[in-house]
C-alpha cells in the first residue's frame, strides 16, 4: 500500500505472555470503529516456542467472530481484498517480551537522576536497585552488597550517571560497573548487557575504553544536553533495546516485525499514551490501571503525566512477586471473611503455577479483588510520591483485567478502594476498558492518530458509574438530592462511614446533584459544611453501578476485632451491591413537589 491509499481495515495484535488478542477495527460510516476480536493463549513457551502460533490462532478466532479471512496458509492477507478478506495493515503491541532489567549507578547530579527515575519507572522494565556513591568516600559494606546483588541479577541495561566534574566519580562507577557486568561479555551464547554512560565529555575516553569491546555501548555528554533531554533519550534507548532484545530472544518476534506497519509498541507504553490523551481530551486528572501482563498504573493531568510499569508483577506469571510486594495482612483486611496469611500465601502460589486460570467462585474473586486493591494502593502511592500531594483523579479507568469480574460493582469497588481518588470536584467517574482496546488505540495512534481518536471516542470506555467522595464525620450525615434528566427527583441521606448507591443508568447524565449545606461534611475541595451542586457538564453520568455516595472514613478504617472487621467490610460490599430504593430518601415524579423542609417519607419498597 502506498501512502496515498486509505487504510480501511486494520488488525491490531496484542501479544502477551499468556494471552494473544487480534482486534479488527474498520472505517465505518465516517469513523474508525471496533468490529471484532479474537483471542488465543500465547505460544512463546514450549511446546510451541513461537509467538506466531498464538497470533495465528487469535486470527482464526477473529475470523470466526467476523466471518472473514485474515490469513491464508502462509501469510496474513495484506491489503484487504475486494471480497472483504484480509486487512490493510497489521499493528502490534507486545507484553510478551521479558522485561529488561535496568540498573542505575550514580554519583552526583540529582537533577539527572530525578529525571531518569520516572522514565525507568514508567518503562516496561524491571528496575534493579539504584546505587548512589560518593566520588571519594570509601566503599562501604552496603555498597559492596548492592554491587553483588546487581551482579547476581545480571542487568540487561546499566545506566552509569556521573553528573560531576570530578572524574574520580566516573572512575569509581566504571570500576563498580565492571564488577557487575564484567570487562567483557562472559559467554558467547549470552546477549551482552548494554551500558549507557551519562557523564561529562571528558569522561568519554575512559568509558569507551572500558565498555566499547563487546557491549552495546552508548555515551551521553552532560554538558551537551539538559536532564530532560537526557531522560527522553534514555527512554527511547530503553524502548529500542526492548525491541532488539525481543527480536533476539522471543521466538517468532522477528516474523511479527516483518508483518507490522509500525514497530511493535510495548503494551504499557501504549496504555500510557492513551491515558495522556484522555487527560487532555477530558481536561481532568485521569488514572488508568491494568493487571493484564504486568502491573501498569498511569496518571496524567493536562500536559503532565507519570506512569509505573512493573512487568513482573501481576496475578498470573508475576503472582509470586505479590508475596514480597504487598503486606499480606493489608490484603486480608479487605476480605469479608477470615483467611489466614498462610492460606493466602498458598492461594497466591497456586495461582502462580497455574497462571492461565480465571477465578470462577465469589470467594476466589474476592481474594483476587483484595490483592488488586492493595496493588493499586501501592501503585498510587508510588505515583503520588513523585508529585505534590495525594493522587487526585476525576476519571479512573480499569484495564481489561477488571473486565473479567462478572459483577460491575467488583471493579468499581476495587478501583475506588485501591486508588482512593480525592477528586478536587468531589466526583470521580469510573470506567472500564472492557474490550482491551486501550493498547491497540495507543498503537493505532502511532500510525493513524485521527483514527485512534475516533476509535477512542466511539468504542473505548465502558462507563461503570460515578462516585462522590464525601468527607463526613462519623456522627453526622449528609443530605442531598439527585435530579434525573426526566425530572424525577430522589432525596438521599448518608451517614459518615457509610456508602449509598443510587440508580443512574448508563448513558444518562444527572440533571443536578445537590448536597445540602450544613454541619461539617466536605465535598471535594469545598469547605466544611459548604455543600455542593453539580449540574450541566459537571453532573455525574451513570452506568450499571450508578451513582455511589461514599462517606467512608479516609484512610479506610478497619476494626481490630476480626468479627467487627468482617461485619464492616461485609456492610461495604452489601452497600455497593445494593441499589438504594429507600435508604434515607425517596423518589418523586415531576410535579410532585414537596414543600421545602418536609421530611422525606420512607419508601416501603
Amino acid at each position, binding site marked *: 500500500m502506498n501512502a496515498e491509499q486509505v487504510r480501511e481495515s486494520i488488525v491490531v495484535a496484542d501479544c502477551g*505472555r499468556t494471552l494473544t488478542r487480534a482486534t479488527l477495527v474498520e472505517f465505518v460510516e465516517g469513523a474508525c470503529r471496533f468490529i471484532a476480536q479474537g*483471542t*488465543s*493463549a500465547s*505460544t512463546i*513457551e*514450549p*511446546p*510451541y516456542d513461537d509467538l506466531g*502460533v498464538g497470533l495465528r*490462532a487469535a486470527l482464526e*478466532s477473529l475470523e470466526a*467472530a467476523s466471518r472473514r479471512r485474515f490469513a491464508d496458509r502462509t501469510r496474513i492477507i495484506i491489503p484487504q481484498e475486494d471480497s472483504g478478506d484480509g486487512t490493510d495493515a497489521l499493528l502490534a503491541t507486545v507484553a510478551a517480551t*521479558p*522485561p529488561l*532489567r535496568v540498573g542505575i549507578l550514580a554519583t552526583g547530579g540529582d537533577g539527572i537522576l530525578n529525571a531518569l527515575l520516572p522514565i525507568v519507572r514508567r518503562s516496561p522494565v*524491571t528496575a534493579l536497585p539504584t546505587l548512589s556513591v560518593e566520588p571519594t568516600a*570509601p*566503599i562501604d559494606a552496603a555498597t559492596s552488597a548492592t554491587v553483588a546483588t546487581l551482579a547476581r541479577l545480571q542487568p540487561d541495561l546499566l545506566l552509569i550517571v556521573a553528573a560531576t566534574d570530578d572524574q574520580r566519580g566516573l*572512575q569509581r562507577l*566504571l*570500576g563498580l560497573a*565492571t*564488577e557487575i557486568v*564484567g*570487562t567483557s561479555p*562472559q*559467554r558467547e551464547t549470552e546477549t551482552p548487557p548494554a551500558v549507557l554512560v551519562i557523564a561529562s565529555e571528558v569522561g568519554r575516553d*575512559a568509558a569507551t*575504553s*572500558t565498555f566499547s569491546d563487546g557491549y552495546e555501548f552508548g555515551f551521553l555528554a552532560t554538558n551537551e544536553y539538559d536532564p530532560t533531554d537526557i531522560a527522553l533519550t534514555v527512554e527511547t534507548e530503553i524502548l529500542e533495546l526492548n525491541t532488539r532484545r525481543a527480536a533476539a530472544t522471543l521466538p517468532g518476534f522477528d516474523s511479527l516485525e516483518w508483518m507490522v506497519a509500525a514497530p511493535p509498541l510495548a503494551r504499557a507504553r501504549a496504555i500510557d499514551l492513551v491515558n495522556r490523551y484522555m487527560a487532555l481530551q477530558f481536561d481532568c486528572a485521569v488514572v488508568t490501571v491494568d493487571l493484564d501482563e504486568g502491573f501498569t498504573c498511569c496518571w496524567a493531568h493536562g500536559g503532565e503525566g507519570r506512569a509505573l510499569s512493573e*512487568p*513482573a508483577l501481576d496475578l498470573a*506469571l*508475576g503472582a*509470586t*512477586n505479590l*508475596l*514480597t510486594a504487598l503486606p499480606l495482612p493489608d490484603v486480608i483486611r479487605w476480605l469479608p471473611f477470615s483467611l489466614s496469611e*498462610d*492460606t493466602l*500465601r*498458598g492461594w497466591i*502460589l*497456586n495461582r*502462580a*503455577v*497455574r*497462571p*492461565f*486460570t*480465571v*477465578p*470462577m*467462585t465469589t*470467594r*476466589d474473586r474476592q481474594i483476587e479483588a483484595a490483592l488488586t486493591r492493595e496493588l493499586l494502593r501501592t501503585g498510587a502511592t508510588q505515583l503520588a510520591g513523585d508529585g505534590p500531594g495525594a493522587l487526585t483523579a476525576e476519571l479512573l479507568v480499569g484495564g481489561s483485567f477488571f473486565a473479567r*469480574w*462478572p*459483577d460491575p460493582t467488583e471493579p468499581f469497588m476495587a478501583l475506588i478502594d485501591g486508588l482512593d481518588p480525592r477528586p478536587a470536584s468531589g466526583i470521580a467517574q469510573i470506567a472500564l476498558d472492557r474490550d482491551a482496546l486501550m493498547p491497540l488505540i495507543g498503537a493505532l495512534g502511532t500510525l493513524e492518530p485521527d483514527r485512534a481518536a475516533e476509535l477512542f471516542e466511539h468504542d473505548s470506555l465502558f462507563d461503570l458509574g460515578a462516585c462522590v467522595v464525601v468527607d463526613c464525620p462519623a456522627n453526622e450525615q449528609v443530605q442531598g438530592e439527585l435530579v434525573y434528566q426526566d425530572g424525577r427527583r430522589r432525596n438521599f441521606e448518608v451517614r459518615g462511614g457509610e456508602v449509598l448507591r443510587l440508580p443512574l443508568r448508563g448513558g444518562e447524565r444527572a440533571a443536578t446533584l445537590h448536597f445540602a449545606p450544613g454541619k461539617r461534611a466536605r465535598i471535594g475541595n469545598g469547605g466544611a459544611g459548604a455543600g455542593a451542586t453539580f449540574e450541566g457538564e459537571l453532573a455525574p453520568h451513570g452506568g450499571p453501578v450508578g451513582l455511589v455516595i461514599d462517606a467512608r472514613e479516609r484512610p479506610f478504617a478497619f476494626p481490630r476485632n476480626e468479627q467487627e472487621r468482617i461485619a464492616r467490610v461485609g456492610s461495604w460490599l452489601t452497600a455497593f451491591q445494593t441499589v438504594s430504593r429507600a435508604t434515607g430518601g425517596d423518589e418523586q415524579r415531576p410535579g410532585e413537589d414537596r414543600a421545602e423542609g418536609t421530611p422525606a417519607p420512607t419508601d416501603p419498597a
Partner: protein
Amino acid sequence: MLHQNPTRQPTLVRENDLRIERRLPVAGEVHVKVGERVEASTLVATGEQTPPATLINVARALDIEPSAAEGRLTKERGQAVHAGEVIARRRRGLRSLTVRSPFDGTFVRFDAHLGTALLRPHATLTELVAHVGGVIEEVEQGRGVTIRTLGSRFYGAFGVGDEAFGVLKIVGGDRQRPLGPELIDNRAARAILAVGGTVSAAALRKAAQVGVRGIIAGSIEESELIGWLGAKEATLWRVGLPDWRIPTADAPLTLVLTEGFGATAMAQPLYDTLTAADGMQGAISGVTRLSGGLLRPEVVVLSRSAGRAGEDLTVPLAALEPGTTVRLLDHDHLGVLATVAEAPRRRRLEGDLLLSALTVTLANGKRMDLPTANVEVLV
C-alpha cells in the same frame, strides 16, 4: 490449545511407549550407541562447561589506588590459582591485607586502569546419565540421546530440586495420608517415596537424613517448604519473568508436588499410577520453570509389563473432547476431577463474560461451565 505442560500430551500418560530426551547443556561427547540398553545410572554423555570468569577488585580490597595495585600482585597473567591462594598482598602497619582466589582456576589478566583482576575457574565436567532405564533409540552427536522405555509419565504442579532416580516406594497406604517423619526409616535410603497427602518439613528433613533421593506428594504448606529449605520468605519467591524459576541448588532432595500448595490430596489417577508401580524404578525432576522455557516437574515410572503384542502404544495428544478426564485448576476447585461433556467453544459465562469455555460433568453428576483455561487434560 493446551498450555499447562511443555508437551502437547496429557498430564498423565499411562503404560505407554515413552521417549525420554537427554541433552547436555553444552556440546560434548555421547558414549552410547543406538540400540544399546541402558540403566538409569548409565553415563550416556559428557561435556565440559566453563563457568563465567570472576572480576575481583584488588585495589579496593587493598585500599589503594588502581594504578598502585599491579605492584601488589603475587600472580601473573596465565598462571594457575588455587582456591584460597593469595593473589595480591599489601602490608599496612602491623597487618597484612590479602586478596585470595575464590576457586581453582587461571589468572586471566589485570586491569591497571580499574585495579581489577579477572580470574577464570577451571572447566567443570558435566556428566549426563540415562536417568531412566531403556533402549537408546536415537543419538544426536555431541548433544545427547533419546531413550525409549515402557512406563508411565506425569507432570506435577510444582517441584524443588534437580533430577533423581531410584526404586519407587509408596508410603502411607492411603491417598489422603500426610507424610510425617514416623513413616520414614533407613529402609527408604536411595528410594523415591510417594505419598498421596501432604508432606511436612520434618518428614523432608528425616528423608534427607536417611538418604531418600526424592519425594512425590500431593501438596505442601508453604511454611513447611520454607522451613525445610531454610529459605527466607522475602527472597525465595522473588522471581524475574525471563526465567521464572526458584533457586533449587540447596534442596537436599528432589520434591515433586502433583497438586501444589495447601492440603490437597493427589489426584486419584496419579496415585493409582504410582501404587501400580510400587517397587519399580522411578525417575523424577523437580525443576519448575513457568517462563523462559516452560518446564514442569516430571515423574516417570517404569512399567512391570513389556507391553502386549499388537497394542497401540502411541502417546496420545491432549484434546478436550467429550469423555476426556480433566483436572480443574482454579483455586476453589483444586483436586476436583471431571469429564468433558461439551467441547470448548467461545461463549458467554456469568456476567456477560465472553471467552472460550467448555462444559464438564463432575463425579456427582453435576454439570458445570468453565473457562477452558481452568482445566487440563489429565488422562
